[in-house]
Protein backbone atom coordinates (compact mmCIF):
# COMPACT_ATOMS: atom_id res chain seq x y z
CA UNK A 1 0.00 0.00 0.00
CA UNK A 2 1.54 3.27 -1.07
CA UNK A 3 1.70 6.28 1.20
CA UNK A 4 -0.70 8.11 -1.06
CA UNK A 5 -3.37 5.48 -0.77
CA UNK A 6 -2.73 5.18 2.92
CA UNK A 7 -3.78 8.80 3.21
CA UNK A 8 -6.79 8.21 0.99
CA UNK A 9 -7.88 5.41 3.31
CA UNK A 10 -7.29 7.72 6.24
CA UNK A 11 -9.52 10.27 4.58
CA UNK A 12 -12.14 7.56 4.04
CA UNK A 13 -11.89 6.65 7.69
CA UNK A 14 -12.32 10.22 8.91
CA UNK A 15 -15.13 10.91 6.50
CA UNK A 16 -16.96 7.75 7.55
CA UNK A 17 -16.31 8.61 11.20
CA UNK A 18 -17.93 12.01 10.80
CA UNK A 19 -21.04 10.48 9.26
CA UNK A 20 -21.12 7.96 12.06
CA UNK A 21 -20.78 10.76 14.56
CA UNK A 22 -23.71 12.61 13.05
CA UNK A 23 -25.78 9.46 13.28
CA UNK A 24 -24.63 8.50 16.76
CA UNK A 25 -24.94 11.91 18.39
CA UNK A 26 -28.73 11.67 18.65
CA UNK A 27 -28.43 8.30 20.30
CA UNK A 28 -25.86 9.69 22.71
CA UNK A 29 -28.30 12.36 23.84
CA UNK A 30 -31.04 9.81 24.50
CA UNK A 31 -28.78 7.26 26.08
CA UNK A 32 -26.62 9.62 28.06
CA UNK A 33 -29.14 12.12 29.34
CA UNK A 34 -32.28 10.06 29.56
CA UNK A 35 -30.77 6.62 30.01
CA UNK A 36 -33.06 5.38 27.28
CA UNK A 37 -31.94 2.46 25.13
CA UNK A 38 -33.42 3.19 21.75
CA UNK A 39 -33.22 0.34 19.28
CA UNK A 40 -35.38 2.30 16.85
CA UNK A 41 -32.51 4.69 16.25
CA UNK A 42 -31.73 3.13 12.88
CA UNK A 43 -35.38 3.35 11.92
CA UNK A 44 -35.37 7.11 12.56
CA UNK A 45 -32.29 7.41 10.39
CA UNK A 46 -34.22 5.64 7.64
CA UNK A 47 -37.14 8.01 8.20
CA UNK A 48 -34.74 10.87 7.50
CA UNK A 49 -33.56 9.30 4.27
CA UNK A 50 -37.12 8.78 3.07
CA UNK A 51 -38.02 12.34 3.99
CA UNK A 52 -35.14 13.47 1.80
CA UNK A 53 -36.37 11.26 -1.01
CA UNK A 54 -39.97 12.41 -0.75
CA UNK A 55 -39.16 16.11 -0.51
CA UNK A 56 -36.72 16.06 -3.42
CA UNK A 57 -39.25 14.13 -5.47
CA UNK A 58 -42.06 16.56 -4.63
CA UNK A 59 -40.24 19.88 -4.76
CA UNK A 60 -37.02 19.09 -6.57
CA UNK A 61 -34.98 21.02 -4.03
CA UNK A 62 -32.55 19.31 -1.71
CA UNK A 63 -32.19 22.25 0.66
CA UNK A 64 -35.85 22.02 1.63
CA UNK A 65 -35.16 18.59 3.03
CA UNK A 66 -33.12 19.98 5.90
CA UNK A 67 -35.88 22.00 7.60
CA UNK A 68 -38.37 19.29 6.73
CA UNK A 69 -36.20 16.67 8.40
CA UNK A 70 -35.65 18.80 11.49
CA UNK A 71 -39.33 19.64 11.91
CA UNK A 72 -40.57 16.11 11.36
CA UNK A 73 -37.84 14.76 13.61
CA UNK A 74 -38.74 17.17 16.40
CA UNK A 75 -42.43 16.33 16.08
CA UNK A 76 -41.77 12.60 15.98
CA UNK A 77 -39.51 12.81 19.01
CA UNK A 78 -41.98 14.91 20.99
CA UNK A 79 -44.83 12.52 20.18
CA UNK A 80 -42.81 9.49 21.15
CA UNK A 81 -41.72 11.02 24.44
CA UNK A 82 -45.20 12.33 25.24
CA UNK A 83 -47.16 9.20 24.44
CA UNK A 84 -44.72 6.35 24.87
CA UNK A 85 -41.46 7.00 26.68
CA UNK A 86 -42.94 9.15 29.44
CA UNK A 87 -45.15 6.23 30.39
CA UNK A 88 -42.09 4.13 30.98
CA UNK A 89 -40.57 6.38 33.62
CA UNK A 90 -39.39 4.16 36.43
CA UNK A 91 -39.59 1.05 34.26
CA UNK A 92 -36.43 -0.85 33.50
CA UNK A 93 -34.40 -0.97 30.32
CA UNK A 94 -36.23 -4.10 29.23
CA UNK A 95 -39.35 -2.06 28.50
CA UNK A 96 -37.33 0.47 26.50
CA UNK A 97 -35.67 -2.25 24.49
CA UNK A 98 -38.98 -3.80 23.62
CA UNK A 99 -40.87 -0.59 23.02
CA UNK A 100 -38.24 0.56 20.58
CA UNK A 101 -38.18 -2.88 18.96
CA UNK A 102 -41.92 -2.56 18.42
CA UNK A 103 -41.35 0.90 16.94
CA UNK A 104 -38.83 -0.55 14.49
CA UNK A 105 -41.41 -2.97 13.16
CA UNK A 106 -44.04 -0.22 12.90
CA UNK A 107 -41.74 2.27 11.18
CA UNK A 108 -40.36 -0.33 8.77
CA UNK A 109 -43.81 -1.51 7.75
CA UNK A 110 -45.05 2.06 7.58
CA UNK A 111 -42.25 2.84 5.16
CA UNK A 112 -43.24 -0.14 3.00
CA UNK A 113 -46.87 0.91 2.98
CA UNK A 114 -46.04 4.44 1.93
CA UNK A 115 -42.99 4.07 -0.29
CA UNK A 116 -42.95 0.42 -1.33
CA UNK A 117 -39.90 -1.78 -1.50
CA UNK A 118 -37.84 -0.35 -4.35
CA UNK A 119 -34.54 1.27 -3.58
CA UNK A 120 -34.41 4.95 -4.44
CA UNK A 121 -31.72 7.46 -5.03
CA UNK A 122 -31.58 11.09 -3.95
CA UNK A 123 -29.68 13.36 -6.32
CA UNK A 124 -26.79 15.27 -4.85
CA UNK A 125 -27.66 18.99 -4.98
CA UNK A 126 -26.23 20.63 -8.13
CA UNK A 127 -23.88 22.94 -6.31
CA UNK A 128 -22.18 20.00 -4.56
CA UNK A 129 -22.29 17.55 -7.44
CA UNK A 130 -18.63 17.90 -8.40
CA UNK A 131 -15.70 15.65 -7.59
CA UNK A 132 -12.14 16.57 -6.66
CA UNK A 133 -9.57 14.41 -8.48
CA UNK A 134 -7.08 12.74 -6.16
CA UNK A 135 -5.24 10.53 -8.61
CA UNK A 136 -5.72 9.63 -12.26
CA UNK A 137 -8.17 6.94 -11.23
CA UNK A 138 -9.75 8.29 -8.10
CA UNK A 139 -11.60 11.43 -7.18
CA UNK A 140 -13.43 12.53 -4.09
CA UNK A 141 -17.04 13.61 -4.26
CA UNK A 142 -17.58 17.12 -2.92
CA UNK A 143 -20.76 15.98 -1.23
CA UNK A 144 -18.79 13.67 1.03
CA UNK A 145 -16.66 16.63 2.06
CA UNK A 146 -19.84 18.63 2.65
CA UNK A 147 -21.05 15.91 5.01
CA UNK A 148 -17.71 16.08 6.82
CA UNK A 149 -18.12 19.83 7.18
CA UNK A 150 -21.61 19.43 8.56
CA UNK A 151 -20.26 16.89 11.02
CA UNK A 152 -17.54 19.24 12.21
CA UNK A 153 -19.91 22.19 12.56
CA UNK A 154 -22.23 19.92 14.47
CA UNK A 155 -19.48 18.79 16.83
CA UNK A 156 -18.48 22.36 17.61
CA UNK A 157 -22.04 23.59 17.99
CA UNK A 158 -23.18 20.82 20.26
CA UNK A 159 -19.98 21.00 22.28
CA UNK A 160 -20.51 24.72 22.87
CA UNK A 161 -24.14 24.26 23.74
CA UNK A 162 -23.40 21.54 26.26
CA UNK A 163 -20.47 23.30 27.85
CA UNK A 164 -21.51 26.94 27.89
CA UNK A 165 -25.22 27.46 27.59
CA UNK A 166 -27.92 27.38 30.22
CA UNK A 167 -29.63 24.61 28.29
CA UNK A 168 -26.49 22.55 28.46
CA UNK A 169 -26.31 23.10 32.18
CA UNK A 170 -29.91 22.02 32.59
CA UNK A 171 -29.29 18.92 30.52
CA UNK A 172 -26.26 17.95 32.50
CA UNK A 173 -28.05 18.52 35.77
CA UNK A 174 -31.04 16.45 34.70
CA UNK A 175 -28.79 13.66 33.53
CA UNK A 176 -26.85 13.56 36.74
CA UNK A 177 -29.66 13.63 39.20
CA UNK A 178 -33.31 13.88 38.37
CA UNK A 179 -34.39 14.86 41.87
CA UNK A 180 -31.64 17.39 42.32
CA UNK A 181 -32.54 19.00 39.01
CA UNK A 182 -36.16 19.20 40.10
CA UNK A 183 -35.09 20.81 43.33
CA UNK A 184 -33.11 23.36 41.34
CA UNK A 185 -36.34 24.35 39.65
CA UNK A 186 -35.64 22.63 36.35
CA UNK A 187 -38.72 21.29 34.64
CA UNK A 188 -37.33 17.82 34.12
CA UNK A 189 -40.34 16.68 32.14
CA UNK A 190 -39.82 19.49 29.69
CA UNK A 191 -36.11 18.79 29.50
CA UNK A 192 -36.84 15.16 28.64
CA UNK A 193 -39.35 16.16 26.02
CA UNK A 194 -36.78 18.51 24.55
CA UNK A 195 -33.95 16.00 24.64
CA UNK A 196 -35.99 13.27 22.99
CA UNK A 197 -37.22 15.66 20.33
CA UNK A 198 -33.73 17.02 19.64
CA UNK A 199 -32.08 13.59 19.84
CA UNK A 200 -34.48 12.08 17.34
CA UNK A 201 -34.32 15.18 15.15
CA UNK A 202 -30.53 14.82 15.05
CA UNK A 203 -30.91 11.26 13.90
CA UNK A 204 -33.51 12.11 11.28
CA UNK A 205 -31.31 14.95 10.07
CA UNK A 206 -28.37 12.56 9.78
CA UNK A 207 -30.58 10.36 7.61
CA UNK A 208 -31.54 13.33 5.44
CA UNK A 209 -27.95 14.38 4.92
CA UNK A 210 -26.75 10.85 4.30
CA UNK A 211 -29.52 10.06 1.80
CA UNK A 212 -27.67 11.22 -1.35
CA UNK A 213 -24.68 9.13 -0.27
CA UNK A 214 -26.40 6.10 1.14
CA UNK A 215 -29.35 5.77 -1.26
CA UNK A 216 -32.73 5.03 0.23
CA UNK A 217 -34.02 1.53 0.73
CA UNK A 218 -35.93 -0.58 3.22
CA UNK A 219 -34.00 -1.79 6.22
CA UNK A 220 -31.19 0.73 5.66
CA UNK A 221 -31.19 1.65 9.33
CA UNK A 222 -30.25 -1.76 10.66
CA UNK A 223 -26.51 -1.49 10.28
CA UNK A 224 -26.48 2.11 11.37
CA UNK A 225 -28.15 1.18 14.64
CA UNK A 226 -25.61 -1.37 15.71
CA UNK A 227 -22.69 0.76 14.57
CA UNK A 228 -24.03 3.70 16.54
CA UNK A 229 -24.12 1.52 19.62
CA UNK A 230 -20.55 0.52 19.01
CA UNK A 231 -19.51 4.15 18.64
CA UNK A 232 -21.21 5.13 21.85
CA UNK A 233 -19.93 2.24 23.87
CA UNK A 234 -16.38 2.78 22.64
CA UNK A 235 -16.55 6.43 23.59
CA UNK A 236 -18.40 6.07 26.84
CA UNK A 237 -22.15 6.33 27.15
CA UNK A 238 -23.39 9.87 27.13
CA UNK A 239 -20.15 11.57 26.30
CA UNK A 240 -20.34 13.55 23.06
CA UNK A 241 -16.59 13.90 22.81
CA UNK A 242 -16.35 10.19 23.54
CA UNK A 243 -18.72 9.50 20.68
CA UNK A 244 -16.33 11.39 18.42
CA UNK A 245 -13.41 9.27 19.57
CA UNK A 246 -15.53 6.15 19.12
CA UNK A 247 -16.51 7.24 15.61
CA UNK A 248 -12.91 7.82 14.62
CA UNK A 249 -11.88 4.46 16.00
CA UNK A 250 -14.67 2.68 14.19
CA UNK A 251 -13.93 4.58 10.99
CA UNK A 252 -10.30 3.51 11.14
CA UNK A 253 -11.07 -0.11 11.93
CA UNK A 254 -13.61 -0.14 9.12
CA UNK A 255 -11.47 1.44 6.42
CA UNK A 256 -8.24 -0.38 7.19
CA UNK A 257 -9.94 -3.57 8.33
CA UNK A 258 -11.58 -3.79 4.92
CA UNK A 259 -8.24 -3.24 3.27
CA UNK A 260 -6.31 -5.82 5.24
CA UNK A 261 -8.81 -8.32 6.72
CA UNK A 262 -12.05 -7.88 4.80
CA UNK A 263 -13.64 -10.97 6.31
CA UNK A 264 -12.89 -9.95 9.84
CA UNK A 265 -13.60 -6.20 9.72
CA UNK A 266 -16.97 -6.40 11.45
CA UNK A 267 -15.71 -9.06 13.78
CA UNK A 268 -12.85 -6.75 14.79
CA UNK A 269 -15.25 -3.92 15.49
CA UNK A 270 -17.21 -5.96 18.04
CA UNK A 271 -14.08 -7.48 19.49
CA UNK A 272 -12.76 -3.94 20.01
CA UNK A 273 -16.01 -2.93 21.65
CA UNK A 274 -15.89 -5.85 24.05
CA UNK A 275 -12.24 -5.24 24.81
CA UNK A 276 -12.93 -1.60 25.65
CA UNK A 277 -15.83 -2.59 27.86
CA UNK A 278 -13.67 -5.05 29.73
CA UNK A 279 -10.77 -2.70 30.27
CA UNK A 280 -12.66 0.56 30.59
CA UNK A 281 -16.30 -0.13 31.33
CA UNK A 282 -17.03 3.60 31.22
CA UNK A 283 -15.69 3.98 27.69
CA UNK A 284 -12.52 5.53 26.38
CA UNK A 285 -13.41 9.08 27.27
CA UNK A 286 -14.50 9.79 30.78
CA UNK A 287 -17.96 11.23 30.77
CA UNK A 288 -18.36 14.67 32.32
CA UNK A 289 -21.66 13.62 33.70
CA UNK A 290 -23.49 14.16 30.46
Amino acid sequence: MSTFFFFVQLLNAIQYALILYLVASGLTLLLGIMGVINLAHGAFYMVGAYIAFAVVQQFGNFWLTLPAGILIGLALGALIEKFLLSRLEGADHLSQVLLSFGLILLINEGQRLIFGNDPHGVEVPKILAASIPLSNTLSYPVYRLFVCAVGIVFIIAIGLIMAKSRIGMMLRASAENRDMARAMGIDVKFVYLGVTAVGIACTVLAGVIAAPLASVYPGMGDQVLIQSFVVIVLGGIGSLSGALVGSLLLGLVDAFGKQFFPNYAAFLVYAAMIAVLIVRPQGLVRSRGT
Partner: protein
Amino acid sequence: MNARLEKFDGAFLLLLAVAAAFVPFVLSGYEIKLATTITIQAGLAVALGFVVGPAGLTSVGHAAFYGVAAYILAMMSPKSGPADMLLTAAIAIFGAAAFALVVGAVSIRSRGMYFILMTIAFGQLGYHLFNDTGIGGKSDGSYVQFRPELHLFWTDVSFDKAPRFYMLVYVVVFLVVGACWWLRRSAFGSVLLAARDNEARTRAFGFSPYVVRLIAFVISGGMAGAMGYLTAAQHGFVAPQMLAWHASAFALVMVLIGGKDTTSGPAIGAILLLLAEEILQRWTEHWLVGVGLIIVVAVIAAPRGLVPFVAGLFAPKQAHHG
Protein backbone atom coordinates in the same frame (compact mmCIF):
# COMPACT_ATOMS: atom_id res chain seq x y z
CA MET B 1 -43.29 -13.80 43.80
CA ASN B 2 -46.38 -13.82 45.94
CA ALA B 3 -48.21 -17.00 46.72
CA ARG B 4 -51.21 -16.33 44.50
CA LEU B 5 -49.11 -15.62 41.46
CA GLU B 6 -47.12 -18.73 42.21
CA LYS B 7 -50.32 -20.78 42.22
CA PHE B 8 -51.43 -19.28 38.94
CA ASP B 9 -48.04 -19.94 37.49
CA GLY B 10 -48.16 -23.59 38.48
CA ALA B 11 -51.69 -23.96 37.15
CA PHE B 12 -50.78 -22.42 33.82
CA LEU B 13 -47.77 -24.66 33.50
CA LEU B 14 -49.81 -27.75 34.24
CA LEU B 15 -52.42 -26.67 31.72
CA LEU B 16 -49.77 -26.06 29.06
CA ALA B 17 -48.05 -29.38 29.73
CA VAL B 18 -51.31 -31.30 29.45
CA ALA B 19 -52.48 -29.43 26.37
CA ALA B 20 -49.11 -29.88 24.68
CA ALA B 21 -49.16 -33.60 25.41
CA PHE B 22 -52.25 -33.92 23.24
CA VAL B 23 -50.69 -32.27 20.20
CA PRO B 24 -49.58 -35.43 18.36
CA PHE B 25 -53.02 -36.95 18.82
CA VAL B 26 -55.16 -34.02 17.77
CA LEU B 27 -53.12 -32.19 15.19
CA SER B 28 -51.63 -33.40 11.97
CA GLY B 29 -49.15 -32.54 9.27
CA TYR B 30 -48.22 -28.90 9.20
CA GLU B 31 -49.91 -28.19 12.49
CA ILE B 32 -47.62 -30.61 14.30
CA LYS B 33 -44.62 -28.91 12.75
CA LEU B 34 -45.98 -25.53 13.80
CA ALA B 35 -46.57 -26.86 17.30
CA THR B 36 -43.00 -28.16 17.32
CA THR B 37 -41.63 -24.74 16.36
CA ILE B 38 -43.77 -23.02 18.97
CA THR B 39 -42.80 -25.49 21.68
CA ILE B 40 -39.12 -24.96 20.99
CA GLN B 41 -39.54 -21.19 21.06
CA ALA B 42 -41.50 -21.48 24.29
CA GLY B 43 -38.57 -23.38 25.76
CA LEU B 44 -36.20 -20.65 24.60
CA ALA B 45 -38.41 -17.94 26.07
CA VAL B 46 -38.66 -19.73 29.42
CA ALA B 47 -34.90 -20.17 29.55
CA LEU B 48 -34.40 -16.50 28.73
CA GLY B 49 -37.12 -15.53 31.23
CA PHE B 50 -35.10 -17.21 33.94
CA VAL B 51 -32.26 -14.71 33.52
CA VAL B 52 -34.45 -11.71 32.71
CA GLY B 53 -36.75 -12.37 35.65
CA PRO B 54 -35.08 -13.65 38.81
CA ALA B 55 -31.53 -12.82 37.75
CA GLY B 56 -32.53 -9.37 36.50
CA LEU B 57 -30.26 -9.66 33.47
CA THR B 58 -31.78 -8.20 30.32
CA SER B 59 -29.85 -10.28 27.85
CA VAL B 60 -30.19 -9.13 24.25
CA GLY B 61 -27.75 -11.79 23.17
CA HIS B 62 -29.40 -15.08 23.98
CA ALA B 63 -29.95 -15.90 20.34
CA ALA B 64 -26.18 -16.28 20.12
CA PHE B 65 -26.23 -19.31 22.44
CA TYR B 66 -29.21 -20.70 20.58
CA GLY B 67 -27.46 -20.19 17.26
CA VAL B 68 -24.07 -21.47 18.33
CA ALA B 69 -25.56 -24.79 19.40
CA ALA B 70 -27.43 -24.99 16.11
CA TYR B 71 -24.20 -24.40 14.22
CA ILE B 72 -22.39 -27.01 16.28
CA LEU B 73 -24.95 -29.58 15.17
CA ALA B 74 -24.63 -28.44 11.56
CA MET B 75 -20.85 -28.63 11.64
CA MET B 76 -20.81 -32.01 13.39
CA SER B 77 -23.40 -33.62 11.13
CA PRO B 78 -21.94 -36.04 8.60
CA LYS B 79 -23.14 -35.60 5.01
CA SER B 80 -23.91 -39.26 4.53
CA GLY B 81 -25.99 -40.21 7.54
CA PRO B 82 -27.53 -39.08 10.80
CA ALA B 83 -25.40 -37.79 13.65
CA ASP B 84 -25.38 -39.36 17.08
CA MET B 85 -27.91 -37.34 19.04
CA LEU B 86 -26.55 -37.81 22.56
CA LEU B 87 -23.04 -36.90 21.50
CA THR B 88 -23.90 -33.91 19.31
CA ALA B 89 -26.49 -32.59 21.74
CA ALA B 90 -24.06 -32.84 24.64
CA ILE B 91 -21.39 -30.97 22.72
CA ALA B 92 -23.83 -28.39 21.40
CA ILE B 93 -25.31 -27.68 24.80
CA PHE B 94 -21.90 -27.66 26.41
CA GLY B 95 -20.63 -25.34 23.70
CA ALA B 96 -23.52 -22.94 24.19
CA ALA B 97 -23.02 -23.01 27.95
CA ALA B 98 -19.30 -22.40 27.53
CA PHE B 99 -20.00 -19.43 25.27
CA ALA B 100 -22.51 -18.18 27.83
CA LEU B 101 -19.83 -18.54 30.50
CA VAL B 102 -17.47 -16.31 28.53
CA VAL B 103 -20.17 -13.77 27.68
CA GLY B 104 -21.54 -13.82 31.20
CA ALA B 105 -18.17 -13.63 32.93
CA VAL B 106 -17.41 -10.44 31.01
CA SER B 107 -20.88 -8.87 30.77
CA ILE B 108 -22.28 -9.50 34.24
CA ARG B 109 -19.63 -7.24 35.69
CA SER B 110 -21.51 -4.38 34.11
CA ARG B 111 -25.08 -3.55 34.94
CA GLY B 112 -28.12 -2.01 33.33
CA MET B 113 -27.51 -0.35 30.02
CA TYR B 114 -23.92 -1.56 29.74
CA PHE B 115 -24.98 -5.14 30.26
CA ILE B 116 -27.54 -4.83 27.47
CA LEU B 117 -25.01 -3.31 25.10
CA MET B 118 -22.44 -5.96 26.01
CA THR B 119 -24.82 -8.77 25.21
CA ILE B 120 -25.78 -7.11 21.92
CA ALA B 121 -22.09 -6.83 21.08
CA PHE B 122 -21.40 -10.48 21.86
CA GLY B 123 -24.45 -11.56 19.88
CA GLN B 124 -23.29 -9.54 16.89
CA LEU B 125 -19.82 -10.95 17.31
CA GLY B 126 -21.31 -14.42 16.93
CA TYR B 127 -23.43 -13.31 13.99
CA HIS B 128 -20.44 -11.85 12.16
CA LEU B 129 -18.34 -14.88 12.99
CA PHE B 130 -20.70 -17.04 10.98
CA ASN B 131 -21.82 -14.41 8.47
CA ASP B 132 -18.50 -12.90 7.42
CA THR B 133 -15.70 -15.32 8.02
CA GLY B 134 -16.89 -18.41 6.20
CA ILE B 135 -16.94 -20.59 9.31
CA GLY B 136 -19.98 -22.83 9.08
CA GLY B 137 -21.07 -21.73 5.61
CA LYS B 138 -21.11 -17.90 5.39
CA SER B 139 -24.23 -15.80 5.17
CA ASP B 140 -26.01 -18.50 3.19
CA GLY B 141 -26.18 -20.79 6.17
CA SER B 142 -25.59 -24.48 6.18
CA TYR B 143 -27.46 -27.77 6.29
CA VAL B 144 -28.07 -30.64 8.59
CA GLN B 145 -28.72 -33.30 5.98
CA PHE B 146 -30.10 -35.89 8.36
CA ARG B 147 -31.96 -35.47 11.60
CA PRO B 148 -29.77 -36.89 14.39
CA GLU B 149 -30.61 -40.33 15.70
CA LEU B 150 -30.70 -41.48 19.27
CA HIS B 151 -28.46 -44.51 19.73
CA LEU B 152 -29.66 -46.63 22.59
CA PHE B 153 -28.07 -49.92 23.57
CA TRP B 154 -30.72 -52.03 22.00
CA THR B 155 -31.93 -49.84 19.15
CA ASP B 156 -31.54 -46.65 17.14
CA VAL B 157 -34.39 -44.19 17.39
CA SER B 158 -35.02 -42.02 14.36
CA PHE B 159 -36.95 -38.77 14.67
CA ASP B 160 -37.71 -38.29 10.99
CA LYS B 161 -41.45 -38.39 11.49
CA ALA B 162 -43.01 -35.21 12.74
CA PRO B 163 -45.04 -36.65 15.66
CA ARG B 164 -42.07 -38.47 17.09
CA PHE B 165 -39.84 -35.45 16.74
CA TYR B 166 -42.53 -33.43 18.45
CA MET B 167 -42.48 -35.87 21.34
CA LEU B 168 -38.74 -35.47 21.64
CA VAL B 169 -39.15 -31.70 21.68
CA TYR B 170 -41.94 -32.02 24.22
CA VAL B 171 -39.78 -34.04 26.58
CA VAL B 172 -36.78 -31.73 26.28
CA VAL B 173 -38.84 -28.56 26.68
CA PHE B 174 -40.73 -30.16 29.56
CA LEU B 175 -37.42 -30.78 31.30
CA VAL B 176 -36.16 -27.27 30.60
CA VAL B 177 -39.35 -25.59 31.77
CA GLY B 178 -39.53 -27.88 34.77
CA ALA B 179 -35.96 -27.05 35.69
CA CYS B 180 -36.62 -23.32 35.38
CA TRP B 181 -39.75 -23.64 37.48
CA TRP B 182 -37.89 -25.59 40.13
CA LEU B 183 -34.90 -23.27 40.16
CA ARG B 184 -37.11 -20.22 40.58
CA ARG B 185 -38.66 -21.77 43.67
CA SER B 186 -35.39 -23.04 45.08
CA ALA B 187 -33.13 -21.30 47.54
CA PHE B 188 -30.91 -20.52 44.56
CA GLY B 189 -33.83 -18.69 42.96
CA SER B 190 -34.39 -16.79 46.19
CA VAL B 191 -30.76 -15.70 46.25
CA LEU B 192 -31.10 -14.49 42.66
CA LEU B 193 -34.22 -12.51 43.52
CA ALA B 194 -32.55 -11.07 46.58
CA ALA B 195 -29.52 -10.06 44.52
CA ARG B 196 -31.81 -8.42 41.97
CA ASP B 197 -33.76 -6.46 44.55
CA ASN B 198 -30.99 -5.64 47.03
CA GLU B 199 -27.53 -6.42 45.83
CA ALA B 200 -25.59 -5.03 48.79
CA ARG B 201 -27.76 -6.82 51.31
CA THR B 202 -27.39 -10.12 49.48
CA ARG B 203 -23.66 -9.73 49.45
CA ALA B 204 -23.73 -9.03 53.16
CA PHE B 205 -25.60 -12.31 53.57
CA GLY B 206 -22.53 -14.09 52.23
CA PHE B 207 -23.51 -14.55 48.58
CA SER B 208 -21.70 -13.20 45.58
CA PRO B 209 -24.34 -11.75 43.23
CA TYR B 210 -21.85 -12.03 40.40
CA VAL B 211 -21.38 -15.74 40.91
CA VAL B 212 -25.05 -16.63 41.32
CA ARG B 213 -25.99 -14.54 38.30
CA LEU B 214 -23.26 -16.12 36.26
CA ILE B 215 -24.46 -19.60 37.22
CA ALA B 216 -28.00 -18.67 36.19
CA PHE B 217 -26.73 -17.16 32.95
CA VAL B 218 -24.75 -20.26 32.04
CA ILE B 219 -27.66 -22.58 32.85
CA SER B 220 -29.96 -20.43 30.74
CA GLY B 221 -27.42 -20.25 27.93
CA GLY B 222 -27.11 -24.02 27.89
CA MET B 223 -30.89 -24.33 27.77
CA ALA B 224 -31.07 -21.84 24.91
CA GLY B 225 -28.45 -23.99 23.22
CA ALA B 226 -30.65 -27.06 23.62
CA MET B 227 -33.44 -25.17 21.86
CA GLY B 228 -31.10 -24.10 19.07
CA TYR B 229 -30.04 -27.71 18.65
CA LEU B 230 -33.66 -28.80 18.34
CA THR B 231 -34.36 -26.03 15.82
CA ALA B 232 -31.42 -27.07 13.67
CA ALA B 233 -32.55 -30.69 13.89
CA GLN B 234 -36.11 -29.74 13.03
CA HIS B 235 -35.35 -27.58 10.01
CA GLY B 236 -32.15 -29.20 8.89
CA PHE B 237 -30.82 -25.73 8.29
CA VAL B 238 -28.91 -23.07 10.18
CA ALA B 239 -28.22 -19.45 9.22
CA PRO B 240 -26.34 -16.57 10.84
CA GLN B 241 -29.61 -14.70 11.42
CA MET B 242 -30.31 -17.19 14.18
CA LEU B 243 -27.67 -15.40 16.24
CA ALA B 244 -28.43 -11.78 15.38
CA TRP B 245 -29.85 -9.31 17.88
CA HIS B 246 -33.24 -9.29 16.13
CA ALA B 247 -33.72 -12.89 17.16
CA SER B 248 -32.69 -12.06 20.72
CA ALA B 249 -35.07 -9.12 20.84
CA PHE B 250 -37.89 -11.26 19.51
CA ALA B 251 -37.32 -13.80 22.28
CA LEU B 252 -37.36 -10.95 24.79
CA VAL B 253 -40.71 -9.86 23.43
CA MET B 254 -42.09 -13.30 24.22
CA VAL B 255 -40.75 -13.05 27.75
CA LEU B 256 -42.24 -9.64 28.31
CA ILE B 257 -45.65 -10.37 26.81
CA GLY B 258 -46.13 -13.37 29.07
CA GLY B 259 -44.44 -11.89 32.12
CA LYS B 260 -40.85 -12.30 33.23
CA ASP B 261 -41.70 -12.97 36.85
CA THR B 262 -43.30 -16.31 36.16
CA THR B 263 -42.17 -19.50 34.49
CA SER B 264 -45.33 -19.96 32.47
CA GLY B 265 -45.35 -16.34 31.28
CA PRO B 266 -42.60 -16.55 28.67
CA ALA B 267 -44.04 -19.81 27.35
CA ILE B 268 -47.46 -18.24 26.98
CA GLY B 269 -45.84 -15.18 25.40
CA ALA B 270 -44.14 -17.40 22.84
CA ILE B 271 -47.34 -19.24 22.01
CA LEU B 272 -49.40 -16.07 21.64
CA LEU B 273 -46.83 -14.18 19.63
CA LEU B 274 -46.14 -17.01 17.20
CA LEU B 275 -49.85 -17.76 16.76
CA ALA B 276 -50.52 -14.07 16.19
CA GLU B 277 -47.77 -14.04 13.59
CA GLU B 278 -49.22 -17.14 11.92
CA ILE B 279 -52.71 -15.67 11.78
CA LEU B 280 -51.67 -12.15 10.79
CA GLN B 281 -49.52 -13.53 7.99
CA ARG B 282 -52.49 -15.22 6.40
CA TRP B 283 -54.46 -12.07 6.69
CA THR B 284 -52.14 -9.36 5.41
CA GLU B 285 -48.71 -9.00 3.94
CA HIS B 286 -48.17 -6.11 6.35
CA TRP B 287 -48.48 -8.44 9.29
CA LEU B 288 -45.45 -6.87 10.96
CA VAL B 289 -47.60 -3.83 11.73
CA GLY B 290 -49.73 -6.13 13.85
CA VAL B 291 -46.75 -7.58 15.66
CA GLY B 292 -45.33 -4.10 16.25
CA LEU B 293 -48.63 -2.89 17.69
CA ILE B 294 -48.91 -5.93 19.94
CA ILE B 295 -45.46 -5.19 21.34
CA VAL B 296 -46.04 -1.47 21.89
CA VAL B 297 -49.43 -2.04 23.51
CA ALA B 298 -48.06 -4.82 25.70
CA VAL B 299 -45.16 -2.66 26.93
CA ILE B 300 -47.44 0.25 27.76
CA ALA B 301 -50.53 -1.53 29.02
CA ALA B 302 -49.26 -4.66 30.73
CA PRO B 303 -45.58 -4.10 31.44
CA ARG B 304 -45.51 -6.94 33.94
CA GLY B 305 -46.91 -9.36 31.40
CA LEU B 306 -50.09 -11.29 30.80
CA VAL B 307 -49.80 -13.96 33.46
CA PRO B 308 -49.43 -11.52 36.36
CA PHE B 309 -52.14 -9.42 34.69
CA VAL B 310 -54.56 -12.34 34.61
CA ALA B 311 -53.60 -13.37 38.12
CA GLY B 312 -54.29 -9.78 39.17
CA LEU B 313 -57.82 -9.98 37.76
CA PHE B 314 -58.55 -12.77 40.21
CA ALA B 315 -57.02 -10.89 43.13
CA PRO B 316 -59.28 -10.30 46.12
CA LYS B 317 -60.47 -6.72 46.10
CA GLN B 318 -58.96 -5.59 49.43
CA ALA B 319 -55.59 -3.91 49.21
CA HIS B 320 -52.63 -5.72 50.68
CA HIS B 321 -52.53 -8.59 53.02
CA GLY B 322 -50.69 -7.06 55.93
